[in-house]
């Protein structure tokens, strides 16, 4: 496989090391602001809602609902050639934030997928150091 065909993996940054370490342990953690009390995604050290630096990490329940999705038929790069059709999604977490992800454990068929359906987190181990949080229908867990 050439470099171009390898699946692109996240390169954790200082403010996201903890997030990716927890993902590797198959746990989903969020940043939450102690001042405005809102959880947010993606992790950063200053709250995007109120600009407070008084923020903490909280473990997410892993439950949410499907906010929107799309079914990719044309691979965006050669790395995704063998994966189409696959489902990309934005999930609204129980704690409030929305996060991008893949919907797995369901046929890539608009007749089966419903915006608003309950989903739960799962983890896909894509390298020795990176596990990606993905979501599957709640009743299939």
């Amino acid at each position, binding site marked *: 496989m050439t470099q171009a065909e390898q699946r692109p993996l996240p*390169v954790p*940054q200082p403010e996201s090391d903890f997030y990716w370490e927890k993902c590797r342990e198959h746990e989903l953690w969020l940043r939450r602001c102690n001042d405005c009390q809102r959880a947010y*995604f993606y992790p950063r050290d200053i709250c995007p809602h109120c600009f407070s630096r008084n923020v903490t990490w909280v473990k997410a329940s892993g439950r949410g609902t499907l906010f929107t999705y*799309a079914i*990719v*038929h044309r691979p965006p790069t050669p790395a995704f050639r063998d994966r189409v059709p696959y489902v990309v999604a934005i999930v609204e977490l129980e704690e409030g934030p929305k996060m991008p992800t893949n919907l797995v454990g369901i046929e890539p068929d608009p007749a089966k997928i419903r915006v608003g359906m309950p989903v739960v987190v799962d983890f896909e181990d894509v390298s020795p150091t990176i596990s*990606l949080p993905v979501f599957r229908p709640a009743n299939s867990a």
Partner: protein
Amino acid sequence: MSRPLQNQRIAIVGVDESDEIGIVPNKSPLQLHAEAAYNALADAGLSIKDVDGLLTAGPFSTLVVAEYLGIEPRFTDSTSVGGSSFVIHLAHAVAAIRQGYCRVALITHGESGRSARTRPPLFQGLPDSQYEVPYGIIGAPIRYSLACMRYMHQYGEERTRQAMAEIAVATRKWAQLNPKALMRDPLTFEDYHNSRWISYPFHLYDCCLVTDAGGAVVVTTEEVARSCRKRPVWILGAAEGHDHNMISAMPDLTRTIAYRTGPAALEQAGVTHEDIDLAMIYDSFTYTVLVTLESLGFCGPGEGPDFVANQRTAPGGDFPMNTNGGGLSYTHSGMYGVFLILEAVRQLRGECGERQVMHKKDSSQPAKIALVHGTGGSLSSCGTAILARD
């Protein structure tokens, strides 16, 4: 006596594409910048020596483009926030000229979206590289289709689908009247609905072309404009903004920040939606048009499908839109925004032949007021400009 600079009206005096657009593998992106600049200056009747402000967007900053053109600008602006950037540059050019930072501003674009021999490398530490790209959320079609699905969920899939088809078919009809358009074969509703999926809910014909093209615009003072080759097109109002970068961070997938830039530009220009003879609306995707018309306030949230129904935006319809054939059928090099300006200026000058749009209040005259709206990134950034002839 001319008016003080700060009160002068600012005009677009030259526009043009590169010599060729569409599939141009034998020219580099910088060549496309330079050809478009050359042609736009010729259109204006100005010399490269007159240019003292340079604005561009994309992987090449004004440093690269100015050196290539052989100029030493005293106003420089590489604001690059996606395909909307060139409309935003209009606002910046107006401000810079009024403040005396420059007198003749050149806005250039050149991109080999189709034939580029190299692509700029991605910075892997960016938030989208960490949180979207690993999932295969890569590129505009996938990102925009996520927004579209949410719109369908909120406002009804069938009527949204019909609206997207209306936009694709109407835009192709305009392209058939534009010799420079790449896609000029007839497109039927059946063709639309039968076209393959790119990223469901997007069919092939929901998506813009990917072409090679350059475009440039020359902006200057009222005083200089009076001595140029063609009639000036005035920039009456211009506004810009952005509210996210990643599609997953978009505050509302069914509304862009056009909800702010549209009213701001209209108010600055002192005109209303009803005064607009021509709408040039960035059409990276059919959905982009739908969400933009609503966000700009041409209709309410969820009313877009009714607004564009029955080929209202096609030739002969009462809301002429994207009369060059748009990004969907004319050209879309990657950052398309500059071409919106080109078409609006040509329409206001009455240069558009078969596809000429007339003034609502005097149908013997060409269109008088145009709204130009660029959308860039993942529905992230917007620039609205109101342009008018005398």
